[in-house]
């Protein structure tokens, strides 16, 4: 085993040396010296549709940062990517590997909420910074929040609130909820129940369905929802469950004359597989990258498409912004000490491709937002209409709630 780990490390070192050399060759001002290593763990095998574009974009951003002189006064930035095995047990071991053997200054990444929480607790125990990028669970920054854990992406609460506020002014009273039966689905449903009455006074929930993740029995679920005769549907399904649900719902006319709010459906990861079955007129959160026409965001999209010969996904955007925030953090802290990094993160403002992103000190949640718009069919593909960027800063948890949840 020792022999193998030696070759692995040697291989990585050689790889980064070649990369650095190539960069130095490319431009005189490129970064030099010992690289600053960030340990990135994510579900590359199991959630490849999200995580591979995410990793690609980080690579793209990091190469740009290093060409422009690196971080902390000229050191190259390096992300060490690892698969987190998609279980908390594997992820904690991988995180230890990144912190001890690979000598990473801090951790970033994770996809599933339970994995994110386990790594967050490890970070707290080992007193190392952890930037959770994708896990959406509210617990990460609320009840289970800790000093060393920060989250970039809008949480379940924030995205639910973006949708319920988009429903303001409607008269849809009778609502049905369909959500995958795990933490993300359950807490989106709970947030929805709490928030919808603020937008539509007198709104009531007439049906709830919680199919097991990845195993929706679409016919039975659609039948049960239709039977309750709701006026509106709040959907939290995504991925293969969403495709099955939408097809069944289209054939059975579930969505006709019904107002639908749907989480994440506008993200290319989930919209592309819907194809010409994309239902029209749903209010969704998503990423209409094709509607970005100027500024650094457009420049990033062009660079991404040129380099990877693929259209960007929501994961790509998150990866790019992650690298920008990390670089800014390192420059501001100018130290790899965890305590200095944590202090530097407090209310850190980063000018990213989606605009300003601030890491709010109170709950250690970033203000990166997302797009809210209406689904529409363009040709044989779904798209978003009337999309607007909802700045996360407007949808954070109220300060009093954060204080109550994070007490102690």
């Amino acid at each position: 085993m020792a022999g193998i780990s030696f070759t692995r490390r040697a291989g990585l070192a050689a790889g980064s040396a070649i990369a650095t050399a190539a960069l130095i060759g490319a431009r005189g001002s490129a970064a030099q010296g010992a690289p600053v290593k960030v340990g990135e763990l994510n579900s590359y095998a199991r959630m490849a549709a999200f995580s591979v574009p995410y990793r690609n974009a980080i690579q793209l951003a990091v190469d740009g940062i290093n060409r422009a002189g690196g971080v902390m006064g000229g050191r190259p930035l390096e992300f060490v990517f690892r698969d987190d095995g998609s279980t908390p047990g594997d992820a904690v071991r991988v995180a230890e590997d990144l912190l001890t053997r690979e000598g990473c200054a801090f951790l970033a990444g994770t996809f599933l909420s339970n994995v994110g929480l386990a790594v967050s607790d490890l970070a707290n125990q080992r007193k190392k910074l952890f930037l959770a990028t994708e896990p959406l669970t509210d617990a990460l920054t609320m009840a289970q929040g800790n000093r060393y854990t920060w989250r970039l992406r809008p949480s379940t609460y924030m995205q639910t609130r973006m949708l319920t506020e988009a429903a303001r002014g409607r008269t849809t009273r009778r609502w049905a909820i369909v959500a995958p039966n795990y933490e993300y689905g359950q807490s989106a449903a709970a947030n929805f129940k709490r928030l919808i009455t603020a937008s539509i006074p007198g709104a009531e929930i007439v049906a709830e369905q919680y199919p097991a993740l990845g195993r929706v029995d679409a016919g039975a679920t659609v039948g049960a929802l239709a039977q309750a005769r709701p006026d509106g549907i709040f959907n939290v399904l995504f991925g293969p469950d969403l495709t099955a649900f939408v097809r069944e719902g289209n054939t059975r006319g579930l969505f006709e004359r019904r107002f639908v709010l749907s989480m994440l459906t506008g993200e290319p990861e989930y919209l592309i597989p819907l194809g010409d079955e994309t239902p029209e007129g749903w209010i969704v959160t998503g990423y209409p990258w094709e509607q970005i026409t100027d500024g650094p965001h457009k420049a990033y999209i062009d660079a991404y498409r040129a380099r990877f010969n693929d259209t960007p996904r929501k994961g790509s955007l998150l990866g790019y912004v992650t690298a920008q925030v990390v670089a800014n953090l390192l420059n501001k802290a100018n130290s790899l000490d965890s305590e200095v990094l944590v202090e530097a993160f407090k209310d850190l403002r980063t000018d990213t491709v989606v605009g300003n992103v601030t890491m709010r000190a109170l709950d250690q949640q970033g203000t990166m937002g997302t797009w809210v718009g209406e689904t529409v069919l363009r040709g044989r593909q779904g798209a978003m209409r009337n999309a607007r960027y909802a700045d996360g800063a407007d949808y954070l948890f109220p300060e009093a709630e954060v204080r109550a949840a994070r007490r102690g």
Partner: protein
Amino acid sequence: MDVGFIVVQSLSGLASASALFIIASGLTLVFGVTRIVNFAHGSFYMLGAYIAVTVVPWLLEIDRSPTLFFTGVLISAIAVGVLGVLMELLLLRRLYKVPELFQLLATFGVVLMVQDAVLKIWGPVDIPGPRAPGLRHGVEILGQRFPAYELFLIVIGPAVLGLLWLLMHRTRFGILIRAATRDREMVGALGVNQAMLFTGTLFLGAALAGLGGALQIPRVSASSQMDLSIITEAFVVTVIGGMGSVPGAFLAAVLIGQLQAFGVLVFPKITLVLVFLLMAAVLVVKPWGLLGRPEAAAGRAALPEGILAVRGFGRVEKLIAGLAIAAMLAVPVFGDAYTVKVATEVLIFALAAFSLNFLVGNGGIVSFGHAAYFGLGAYAAGLLVTKGGLPMEPALLAAPIAGGLFAALFGFFVVRLSGIYLAMLTLAFAQIAYAVCFQWVEVTGGDNGVVGVWPSAWAASRQVYHYVVAACAILAIIALRRVVYAPFGATLRAARDSEQRADAIGIDVRTHRWLAFTLAGGAAGLAGGLYAFSKGSIDPTLLAIPLSVDFLAMILLGGIQTVMGAVAGAAAFHTIKDIFMPLTDFWRFLLGASIIALVLVFPRGLAGAFAGWRA
């Protein structure tokens, strides 16, 4: 509720049942003839869907006709059948002479490889299939709209059942299948070409799985996770129906379909566990499933699988054991922090695997749900620390007690069964325990689990905690090993090799098995408690099927015929995984390939190969 709704909901259930039956019928045929628990059946289903979403749109380009659509579906099914034949010829055929469980391990390796192969070939994005031409629309039934394609599915299930009936009763091949399902040894003794029979059955089984997958494409998109989502359900259907019984599978599928369709109305969250509750209930009442029959061979003294000769340690073995213990104790002195971490986990898994092999190798009790006791131990320890405010020491004591108590409770029912039915009942109980941990959010934290399960201050460092684990795990393994060598262990082996004979000489087989199950559960619980403190968190993946399968893989890699094989297997499995995971995104492919390679090279496991070399 109006009549129209009830009728349509029931039709939805029938459509799901039809789809499920087609897949499960293949599984039950393969099991009936070859006695292989084919984990790769779900992979065949997935491959059927992927091949169909590739072939069918290409055919529809020529002409959007229903004929071409169903031609594409049949082509996919046949292509998957050919893949099944390849698996039989290249892999399973080499393994018919080794214990049956090894074929299970080999098919598990195939599952891992296919998962990554699919990602490589078709990419990670879900691929939606085309709708069936002519069956896109909805049909009005009693004022409710119902998809025409699902009406078609409702018809196709019974049609497949009818065709299979004709095949089984009107062709020589089918008669041989039935004969082999009843009594495989007798068929062999009568001079039937078993190799041809097995290859043909694998073709039929895989083709049915492929057909099931291909027929799903108008309803669900092809995704790389559909294999695991279907395989447990297909197992449940075959077991409820009775392994090897095609009509039984049909009956069970209809039952499950209806239960799902109406279950979601009453308990919208219960889909996770409903089928397993049904399976547990059926098996407790009817130990062979609804239409299954006791194995004809059940009464014979079969060639025993598992630990045969319990020789004591010779000089070489003593030296190796001493070196292994010394190496484990020296890790914190010489190894870096990460090596310590991995060594700690190897020790924990060694204990868990050893306790499983105590059941499988020594007692012939094959448990597919051993992670349940591991996880329940972890939960007991974790909840006592985080919610109960206790320190680590009493919590670690509670872990084996919890594991043992639940093993005693579940084991009471489990030991009444035998063979594959016993294995499936352990799986059902494990899934029920998993669902409780998953669903009871207030106490267990749901699927997020509970964090903050860290050792007491004196044991907080990785090095000290490693010694805590080493002391607990090594002592527990030594204690369990003594039980194997004690009269109790010998009694279990006697009951394993011939229940009737053991019974005849006055052994209370059930009580002995029950005690063994409880003891193994306690040991697994201890391992789970140790694991929780090494990770700092508990969550339902600790009770989940993948971990149970990992434990099985460990003991099979090590070899179930030897006492210490499980320890070697745990070390090998965990090390392989740890080496491959950082190397590539396709680590599951490498893990699967190395499992298959090890099974082929060491068909009796690592320790079995060592014992052979010594002899």
